[in-house]
């Protein structure tokens, strides 16, 4: 069994670090007011100890917040479970890859291509899946994400072209590789843009599959309305990374989408968890009522079409 070492930060080590930083600060800023140099520094250890206690307290009270959007694979799964039919015309053509030269466009379209790849894979479109895997690889590579698909992964894919479970596992793993690469290289904001691109692609496919003739009692319409919950997360995600201009530039667009979603009403009853002991699965029992008019749906469809066009162009 592999062992993973953990970092043990002793309080003493933190004290040492603080003291050293203070010492280095005084040295580099020439503490001494221009007088004669000195190698004696007086540190009030009581004050330092108090600061460290505050630091420890801050550390314990800081809360990390994650906002999790549906991944491209989950989006594709939701489309399929809502009864989507496969239509390749709805995907972003792979010939567009060369158009994307800015980080923002590359990130958005990495999300879009990964969603298209997931969608094609769930419908066993092997050749299309390979095409979109290559498109994702190309965009990811230009975005600086190296080896998103290793040679081993591509070989595994080729050997399992008819095994959907393996293909889904490959998509899941490669998406995690690209996300973790971005997060661990201080590019979490770019990772957020990838997710937003994928989320819009899911909405584009979903809204394109609904029209006036199949609007009523359509599970897809409910699924689209459900995105009201995820839109809330999209906006929080954008606000979290608003220091990044590419992320911040998406806020106005998403608030326009929110203005439309605000016209959709979803009422949910209180949740009652009920565990099925036979399979250990808990059902969160509750019901919801979604109110959406065809006019609001059309408005949403047009807005998503405009946004998606601006993303892929």
């Amino acid at each position, binding site marked *: 069994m592999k062992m993973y*070492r*953990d970092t043990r930060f002793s309080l003493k080590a933190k004290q040492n670090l603080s003291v050293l930083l203070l010492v280095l600060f005084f040295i580099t800023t020439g503490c001494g007011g221009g007088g004669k140099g000195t190698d004696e520094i007086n540190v009030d250890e009581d004050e330092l100890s108090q600061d460290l206690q505050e630091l420890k307290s801050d550390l314990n009270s800081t809360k990390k917040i994650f906002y999790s959007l549906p991944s491209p*694979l989950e989006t594709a799964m939701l489309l399929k479970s809502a009864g989507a039919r496969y239509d390749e015309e709805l995907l972003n053509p792979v010939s567009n890859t060369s158009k994307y030269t800015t980080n923002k466009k590359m990130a958005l379209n990495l999300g879009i291509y990964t969603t298209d790849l997931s969608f094609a894979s769930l419908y066993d479109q092997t050749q299309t899946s390979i095409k979109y895997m290559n498109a994702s690889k190309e965009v990811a590579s230009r975005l600086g994400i190296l080896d998103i698909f290793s040679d081993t992964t591509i070989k595994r894919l080729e050997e399992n072209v008819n095994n959907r479970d393996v293909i*889904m596992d490959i998509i899941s793993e490669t998406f995690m590789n690209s*996300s973790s690469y971005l997060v661990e290289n201080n590019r979490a904001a770019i990772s957020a843009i990838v997710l937003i691109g994928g989320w819009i692609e899911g909405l584009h496919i979903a809204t394109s599959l609904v029209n006036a003739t199949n609007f009523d009692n359509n599970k897809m319409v409910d699924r689209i309305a459900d995105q009201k919950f995820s839109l809330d997360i999209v906006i929080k995600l954008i606000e979290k990374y608003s220091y990044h201009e590419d992320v911040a530039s998406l806020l106005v667009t998403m608030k326009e989408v929110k203005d439309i979603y605000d016209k959709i009403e979803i009422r949910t009853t209180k949740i009652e968890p009920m565990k099925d002991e036979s399979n250990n699965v808990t059902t969160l029992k509750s019901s919801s009522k979604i109110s959406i008019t065809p006019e609001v749906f059309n408005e949403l469809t047009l807005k998503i079409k405009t946004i998606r066009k601006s993303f892929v162009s």
Partner: protein
Amino acid sequence: MKRYFQLIPVVVLSAALSVNSFAQCKTFAKNVCKPILDPFIHDGNYNAAILTEGEEAELYKTFYSGQVYRISICGSEALPKIQFKVIDSDNNVLYDNKSNGYSQTWDFKTEASQQLKVYIKVPASGKNQEEINSGCVAIMFGFKDE
């Protein structure tokens, strides 16, 4: 003054271990946490961070009606058992793993789509006041292709 410079190796080592630990988080999530999702399919999202004893985290996610989900939360060996709760928008606790032997997973489905909060806490071990342990904590979600 001299004694502060003697601390340089300690500080450098501490910083190096921190960077090393961060890089290992992805490997930990992939090799230790992801297998716990089986037979569910990992959604591919990466939610992991270095947390310290006593630290809390929250994750917000929409769960869709009709889908069966598995939440998997795991922390590296240096950390005490991780506590997690699933909480609805009215602040009702739907699940608390503390009442279930600090289980690392929870399987559920929801009849109505909704946004839920996953609250995570790394309990303080209380063993040694002079030492704070840190380690990777990963939150992963799986679903079924049905």
